[in-house]
């Protein structure tokens, strides 16, 4: 994951001078009385938002821009669509190098880069307590009603779920990955997940297979787990038949070259098909330990001119590789929700894939040819598609693109997530004794007792913080987005609302001192 910093000059700094009509009187009315307990104050804030059917959402994850990856773009796109629907969204993540403090992205999306210590692989150290003061401050000043945590690899997400429950807020969690049950690291992560999810109001998974996996890992009631698939940006993946070489048939493979992506299968398919079809060539993008297998095959069968290995690809280059091919091949052995085949189909390619994990759920039957994860089955499937391609029976790339572009859109994801928030907000927050009982009954005797102890300490720490730094001393932040958002009033209007146009535009001028 290359850390890239994209700064966009187009985004203007939302200086309070021209955007935020400050009015001290509106603030005094929204402030809570001095002696009110946190729970009641947060509930009263919740009611205010519930009356307008809008939520005040805080997305928490260790992973956000400038770090690049699937979770990061998921959070960003989902937040943008929720803002468009009139909700208030803020994002809390840890500081990346000098990027710490408060920043604004496109359409007034506010990001808190909190100075928490990073431990391993961009994930913060978890002590269960040290993040409470800052997260409490964010939740209180933004009058958060729903805390939405992302990714089970993120320690900050787990911490936030725990603290949010201590503070009496509703929580939602999105799981982005499949996990094993056997090795030590998954056993430990699964235990942590059991503890943090045991009183989470609602959980979102990306496919039914992923839901099954999460329910088993975290010992959950399947009724509180929803499935909302990921989405792709159809405008990023458009077909362009002119890039193809029509004198031959090109098969494109874009994946990391690792065991679980089935590269060994690919190594078996290549010589068999190349022997049968002299005009077939392979274009392989991606890097990994299994590259050796492919190089070996290429060497052994003298296929240097027909099998091209492109090495690691940037996400922005993927489309340019995809449009060069006729057929997209995916040989994964396990997959939660395969984004690659949606991207391939969106570029107008014929898709051949293995029938594993959540893949059969992803595309309708006429757009994908599913095979068993064996060399022979995949060869049969590919030959069928090659024959169709030769006969000219395949639909045109443009028509495939038209069919795919409506399947997975971020607006649809946002709509469904909104329903999850409505549902979560309607549920009561467990008081401490019930919560402790639940922890002990759900998470086993030992881990349950340990974490009930941690929950009690967390609660006492919160009381201490409330005494040291009472809630009424914390200034309520002005809403940039949401029902009373100041960002759109006369400022954001001239800016295009297109999400792609100004993605990751960071107001860099807000230099903040810690």
């Amino acid at each position: 994951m290359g850390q890239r910093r994209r700064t966009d000059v187009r985004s203007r700094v939302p200086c309070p001078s021209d955007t935020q009509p400050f009015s001290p009187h509106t603030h005094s009315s929204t402030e809570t009385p001095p002696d009110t307990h946190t729970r009641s104050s947060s509930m009263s804030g919740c009611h205010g938002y519930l009356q307008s059917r809008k939520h005040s959402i805080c997305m928490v994850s260790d992973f956000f821009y400038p770090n690049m990856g699937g979770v990061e773009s998921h959070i960003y796109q989902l937040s943008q669509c929720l803002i468009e629907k009139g909700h208030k969204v803020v994002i809390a993540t840890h500081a990346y190098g000098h990027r710490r403090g408060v920043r604004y992205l496109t359409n007034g999306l506010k990001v808190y880069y909190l100075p928490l210590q990073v431990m391993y692989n961009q994930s913060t150290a978890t002590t269960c307590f040290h993040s409470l003061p800052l997260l409490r401050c964010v939740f209180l000043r933004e009058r958060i009603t729903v805390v939405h945590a992302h990714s089970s690899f993120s320690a900050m997400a787990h911490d936030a779920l725990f603290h949010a429950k201590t503070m009496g807020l509703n929580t939602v969690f999105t799981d982005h990955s499949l996990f094993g049950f056997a090795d030590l690291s998954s056993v430990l992560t699964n235990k942590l997940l059991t503890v943090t999810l045991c009183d989470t109001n609602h959980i979102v998974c990306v496919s039914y297979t992923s839901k099954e996996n999460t329910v088993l890992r975290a010992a959950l009631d399947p009724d509180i787990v929803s499935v909302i698939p990921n989405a792709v940006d159809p405008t990023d993946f458009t077909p362009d038949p002119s890039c193809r070489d029509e004198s031959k048939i090109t098969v494109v493979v874009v994946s990391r070259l690792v065991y679980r992506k089935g590269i060994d299968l690919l190594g078996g398919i290549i010589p068999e098909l190349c022997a049968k079809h002299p005009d077939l060539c392979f274009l392989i993008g991606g890097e990994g330990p299994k590259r050796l297998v492919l190089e070996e095959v290429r060497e052994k069968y003298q296929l240097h001119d027909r099998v091209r290995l492109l090495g690691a690809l940037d996400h922005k280059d993927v489309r340019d590789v995809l449009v060069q091919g006729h057929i997209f091949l995916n040989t994964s052995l396990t997959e939660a929700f395969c984004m690659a085949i949606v991207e391939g189909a969106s570029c107008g390619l014929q898709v051949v894939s293995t029938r594993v994990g959540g893949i059969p759920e992803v595309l309708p039957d006429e757009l994908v040819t599913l095979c068993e994860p064996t060399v022979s089955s995949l060869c049969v499937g590919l030959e069928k598609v090659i024959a169709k391609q030769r006969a000219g029976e395949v639909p045109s790339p443009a028509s495939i693109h038209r069919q795919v572009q409506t399947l997975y859109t971020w607006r649809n994801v946002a709509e469904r997530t909104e329903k999850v928030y409505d549902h979560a907000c309607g549920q009561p927050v467990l008081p401490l004794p019930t919560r402790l009982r639940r922890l002990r009954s759900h998470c086993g005797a030992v881990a349950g007792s340990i974490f009930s102890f941690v929950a009690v300490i967390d609660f006492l720490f919160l009381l201490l913080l409330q005494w040291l730094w009472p809630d009424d001393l914390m200034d309520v932040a002005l809403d940039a987005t949401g029902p009373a958002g100041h960002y759109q009033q006369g400022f954001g209007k001239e800016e295009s609302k297109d999400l792609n146009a100004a993605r990751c535009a960071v107001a860099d001028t807000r230099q903040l001192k810690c």
Partner: protein
Amino acid sequence: MAENEEFTDIRGKPIKLSCQDYSPFCREFTVSSAKLSLVRVMVFTCIVWLLAYAAFYLTQNTAVLSSAIFVTLCGMLLHVHFMKVDHETLLVVGSLGVQLSSTYASGRESTSFIEMSRIKDIVINEAIYMQTIIYYLCILLKDPAEPEGVGSVVPLFQSSKPRLNCLVRVYKSCQEILGQTERS
């Protein structure tokens, strides 16, 4: 004419904001925090002296006692001279510039002046301060290399740290003057 208003700082302690209008183009804001409290001085001195007596009891060395007297006196002087700020003043003169001065408890005064040509704007910003997130008022300075960009930021009222409602009050009056300057 001067108006006095009561506000609180981010810790909940009362502070006083007084606005002095000299002319439509010239306004002075003074934020005064509470005076050095006698109780706190006494408590601090008592702690140091008790510790010194404990050390004296163990070591039987009178140098400990004399150094305790020295420490309390020096500590008090340093605190009064460099740490404790009584007043912070922001004087905005349209078309001329902004003068910032802070008066320490000892009477020492430190003043700096920023001419109008270097000032881009005065805004309210957010920052993470210790374990909390606060609003503060700051002056944005122009970058000499890039006239459109922001070179650096000068935070105002750094030691008194007023809350948002007080900052909004100062911000609005400052913008009135800056707006008049821009128009003319």
